[in-house]
């Protein structure tokens, strides 16, 4: 479904990602791990179009295969690739409900005139968007707080709201950037279950960055390990756990 082929990303003289290749098949949960500063988020930024890769390309297949590394972020989102952010980027001053509602805006067919004139076609679409937003909020357990402002939510709930907002865009591939950051073991357990549930329900493929090893090892079928921008290992959790290079990279950091 997603092919990252020989992607290199340089900033000035700094090589953040070096000749990275990865392959994600439909329905998989794939992990991307590595020490801090290994270039994981840069990979996400390349996939979602925030950065244009210096070399290499990214291909996405949802029916027919397309090169997406030349597209804008919003075009990539429209094709069905959506993400959450490591340092949470909600629309802070807007309500929880509006945050999710806005996630659905890209699928809106009505133009601005029918929106202003409140034509029946627009009203119907808006009603559907609202119903869907409410459904997603129930799903992530935030329905009760739908009228609160996003910034007033506690940290863990903000993370869940980001996932709900991303789901509202109807993604086929969901990129989660450290979804369990700052969560306690119990919350982490719930999150893992939640990821499996949404994966089934929305027929998702998931690509995630995570530091909590129990999450990665617990739910990922395939794992890529980056160190200093270079791929040092790939394989299933068992293979990764026994890989000498991976152990070295992590111990070296500690």
């Amino acid at each position, binding site marked *: 479904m997603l092919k990252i082929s020989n992607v290199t990303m340089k900033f000035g003289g700094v090589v953040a990602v070096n000749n990275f290749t990865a392959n994600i098949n439909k329905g998989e949960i794939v992990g991307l791990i590595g020490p801090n500063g290994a270039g994981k988020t840069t990979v996400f*930024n390349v996939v979602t179009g925030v950065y244009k890769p210096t070399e290499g390309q990214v291909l996405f297949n949802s029916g027919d295969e397309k090169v997406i590394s030349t597209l804008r972020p919003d075009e990539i989102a429209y094709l069905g690739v959506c993400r959450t952010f490591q340092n949470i980027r909600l629309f802070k001053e807007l309500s929880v409900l509006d945050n999710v509602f806005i996630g659905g805006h890209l699928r809106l067919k009505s133009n601005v005139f029918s929106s202003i004139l409140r034509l029946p076609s627009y009203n119907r679409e808006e009603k559907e968007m609202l119903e869907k937003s409410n459904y997603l909020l129930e799903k992530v357990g935030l329905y009760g707080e739908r009228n609160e402002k996003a910034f007033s939510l506690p940290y863990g709930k903000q993370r869940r709201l980001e996932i709900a907002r991303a789901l509202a865009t109807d993604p086929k591939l969901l990129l989660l950037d450290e979804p369990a950051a700052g969560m306690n073991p119990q919350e982490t357990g719930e999150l893992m279950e939640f990821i499996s549930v949404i994966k089934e329900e929305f027929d998702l493929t998931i690509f995630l960055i995570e530091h909590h090893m129990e999450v990665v090892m617990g739910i990922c079928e395939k794992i890529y390990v980056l160190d200093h921008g270079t791929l040092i290992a790939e394989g299933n959790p068992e293979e990764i756990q026994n890989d000498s290079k991976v152990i070295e990279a992590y111990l070296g950091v500690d």
Partner: protein
Amino acid sequence: MNKEFLQHMANGISLGSLYALIAIGYTMVYGILRLINFAHGDIFMLGVYLTFYGITYTSIPWYIVFILASVITGFLGVTLERLAYKPLRGSPRITILISAIGASFLLQNAGVLVFGGRPKAFPTPEVFNKVISIGEISVALVNFIIPIVTLILLVILNFFIQKTRTGMAMRALSKDYEAASLMGIDINNTISITFFIGSFLAAVGGIMWGIKYPQLMPHMGVLPGLKCFIAAVIGGIGSISGAVLGGFILGLGEILLIAFLPSLTGYRDAFAFILLIIILLVKPTGLMGEKIAEKV
């Protein structure tokens, strides 16, 4: 034709020098605070008026008045920063920009209130009116003095920025504000000195402006202010040599435009804005600016 061209060049260079002096204040402040100091043009205006009053109402020799007025204007710039910008440090950039716009209107209208709205004539000391002839071209002395004074000030400024501790602190702040503030640089002090230098240079520019174009009005700082900001953007905002380059491009461009395409004289003031928009679209970082990567 050749003679005429040289005369226009002399005129353009002196106008360009003035733009450069004022543009430095914009670029230094922007480099550190990421703020368009909208009131900078009005600080320039205050410098000119201070000189006017000093010469007209005191018996202090004009050269002392020039220096005093420039220093006082420097302190006025520092005061402006303390009152209007410092309380907003860390607020969204737009908020500070609004405060700057407010400060600009405040100074203009306070100018109308205190100095009167009617134009005043700048009391140019006799020396400057002398006309100098070199070969075929004859130019007012002031057109020679302006580039020379500018050059001297630029050399001193360059020394200050490159060699002194405060200069290094300024460079560090404009490179990476947060890192520099963690390194124990006295931010308040450095910013105050930046405003002092910028306002001082604006006042020097203003006095020479008054000699070249001897008419004073409370709103006289608005247009030169905007143009000099544009000069700073053209050169690459944050870069002092860029501001100087931008000032000369703008000054020469304006003078040569009206000299050789007289039918466009009415569009003289639009020239700067058109240049600005072209630069922003083609090379938003300016001719000598550095590209800053977006953080996600």
